[in-house]
């Protein structure tokens, strides 16, 4: 490695060296390289043949709006646009504040954002030809402002505000009729569920983890039972239980179905998250707590300033894995009739006009799921790098 970097060799042969070292170092390695190349070629070839000669891609543009926002009323679409532009701006701020003094390399983030923006291009007409560039501009404006003036912490609070803003804009009646949450759908609903689940399950999971390791037996017992019961229940069942029991617990049977689903996914994810965080808590050497207490920090200060930051840092990969799993698990809300991305796809496939297009549909949504999951895991890698203090 070191040597190939130092010797001033032309590009081609540097690649040859790399290939020799990594792909053909031993006979077995060469065979494996050859076999996997064949496999990759075969998969790519078959997929290309299908994609370019057989696939009927027209189903995607014809249903793009459904895929993105489900049955959201078209005359109310300005709500979605407002939210998207505000989100674009905040994404830009986020991206900019995190990239202080760094070059523009956060491509996964921007890709995901741009996809989300273009997501709504159903037909090119007056509003869209203005709105799409506006959203893109918002990303860049946010970026340069964020890089110049904002701390990452300030942006995190901005996100919370943006989320509340989005919930209001997407539903509340401002005089010409509101939008029911049951009309939210597609990728929009998937994102809302995932964001709520990830954001809300985090504090709950951390609290459960701390509770489980608590020295007070009652608290520890309650948290343990809660965690184990939830972890012993399939998510689908958790959704059903949330539908049936949340009204019972909170009173009133007209509690929003989406809200119940949010509670279900939050509780489910929190239980797993708690176990990850507990692992982080237990991996911390006892000397850390002793040093903090010897300095006179209180138990709470020790927990918040010394223990939690390190425990959470240690489990960042697990937490992100959890977030990605949750993002994809949102597809299970089809079971309670919410029309997120997968449910919508399934219903398009059953539309007589689009019989036989499931390959195109499921291929497309798998790409969409992948882009967001990949953005999350690549964001996590950046985060880990930034948090690594042992360089």
């Amino acid at each position, binding site marked *: 490695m070191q040597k190939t970097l130092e010797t001033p060799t032309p590009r081609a042969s540097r690649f040859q060296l790399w290939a020799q070292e990594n792909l053909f170092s031993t006979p077995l390695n060469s065979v494996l390289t050859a076999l996997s190349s064949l496999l990759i070629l075969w998969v790519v070839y078959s997929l290309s043949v299908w994609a370019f000669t057989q696939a009927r891609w027209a189903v995607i543009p014809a249903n793009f709006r459904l895929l993105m926002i489900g049955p959201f009323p078209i005359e109310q679409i300005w709500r979605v646009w407002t939210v998207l532009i505000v989100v674009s701006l905040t994404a830009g701020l986020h991206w900019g504040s995190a990239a202080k003094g760094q070059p523009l390399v956060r491509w996964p983030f921007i890709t995901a954002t741009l996809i989300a923006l273009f997501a709504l291009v159903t037909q090119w007409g007056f509003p869209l030809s203005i709105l799409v560039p506006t959203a893109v501009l918002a990303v860049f404006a946010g970026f340069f402002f964020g890089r110049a003036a904002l701390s990452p912490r300030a942006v995190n609070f901005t996100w919370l505000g943006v989320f509340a803003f989005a919930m209001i804009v997407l539903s509340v009646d401002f005089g010409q009729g509101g939008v029911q949450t049951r009309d939210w759908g597609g990728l929009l609903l998937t994102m809302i569920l995932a964001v709520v689940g990830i954001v809300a399950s985090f504090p709950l999971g951390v609290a459960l983890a701390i509770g489980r390791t608590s020295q007070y037996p009652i608290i520890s017992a309650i948290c343990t039972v809660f965690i184990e019961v939830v972890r012993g229940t399939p998510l689908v069942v958790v959704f059903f239980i949330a539908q049936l029991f949340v009204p019972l617990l909170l009173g009133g049977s007209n509690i929003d179905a989406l809200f119940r689903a949010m509670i279900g996914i939050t509780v489910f994810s929190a239980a797993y998250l708690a176990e990850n965080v507990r692992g982080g808590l237990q991996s911390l050497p006892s000397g850390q707590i002793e*040093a903090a207490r010897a300095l006179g920090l209180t138990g709470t200060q020790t927990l918040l300033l010394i223990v939690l930051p390190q425990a959470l840092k240690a489990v960042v990969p697990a937490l992100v894995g959890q977030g990605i799993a949750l993002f994809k698990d949102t597809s299970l809300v089809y079971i309670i009739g919410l029309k997120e991305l997968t449910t919508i796809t399934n219903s398009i496939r059953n539309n007589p006009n689009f019989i036989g297009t499931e390959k195109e549909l499921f291929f497309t949504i798998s790409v969409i799921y992948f882009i967001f999951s990949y953005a999350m895991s690549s964001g996590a890698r950046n985060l880990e790098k930034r948090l690594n203090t042992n360089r």
Partner: protein
Amino acid sequence: MTQPLKDLSAAPVAIQADHVNKYYGSFQALKDVSMQVKQGEVVVVIGPSGSGKSTFIRCINRLEEHQTGRIVVGGVELTNDVRNIDAIRKDVGMVFQSFNLFPHLTVLQNITIAPMRVKKLEKAAAEKVGMDLLERVGIPEQASKFPGQLSGGQQQRVAIARALAMQPKIMLFDEPTSALDPEMIKEVLDVMKELATSGITMMCVTHEMGFAREVADRIIFFDKGQVIEEATPDDFYNNPKTDRAKLFLSQILGH
């Protein structure tokens, strides 16, 4: 080599231990330990592995709890009263064998965290204190690094600075150089020697004989949870009175 004798007879008592017993389950780690340390005194605690040195020193700031007997630090008795414990911890700094720096905080943050959170010092004031201490332990240029980027000797000096940032009246050291490579021991001992001559009360578990002879006022020898012998360094190293001390010295001195 030997320092001019301090006159401690009139000095107030910093640490008083009376008939202290400490059990881990059924195992008795401290047996009827009594001793007194005067303000400004430098005491070195030695003894074989497992003899209860760490246990005793950790009882002084309540990292361990003793079961019977009395420990009074700076006039405050250690009881289950959290206010007493907090008061004592504010006045007692501790340095550990394994440094125990906070790896997620920079060197300077490690030092300023307690003054800011416990004493509620302003950030700027705390950082001033922190930089002065880093100057004192000889590594001001490392302020913005993380502990993981420092050598062991540097880390231990940061740990000393961190403890000093609370301006303690008493400093406890539990084998501060045992985890260090030989070439780094001196830089830490030099800091400790400077500290010892500054008038602070020090109780230090260490087998560094040079250090003990140079700055200690007294050696306390532990064995099997008991204080076996107390003497000046010269007396202790030249004429140990008990057989156990003789045996121990012959082992660590290798003859």
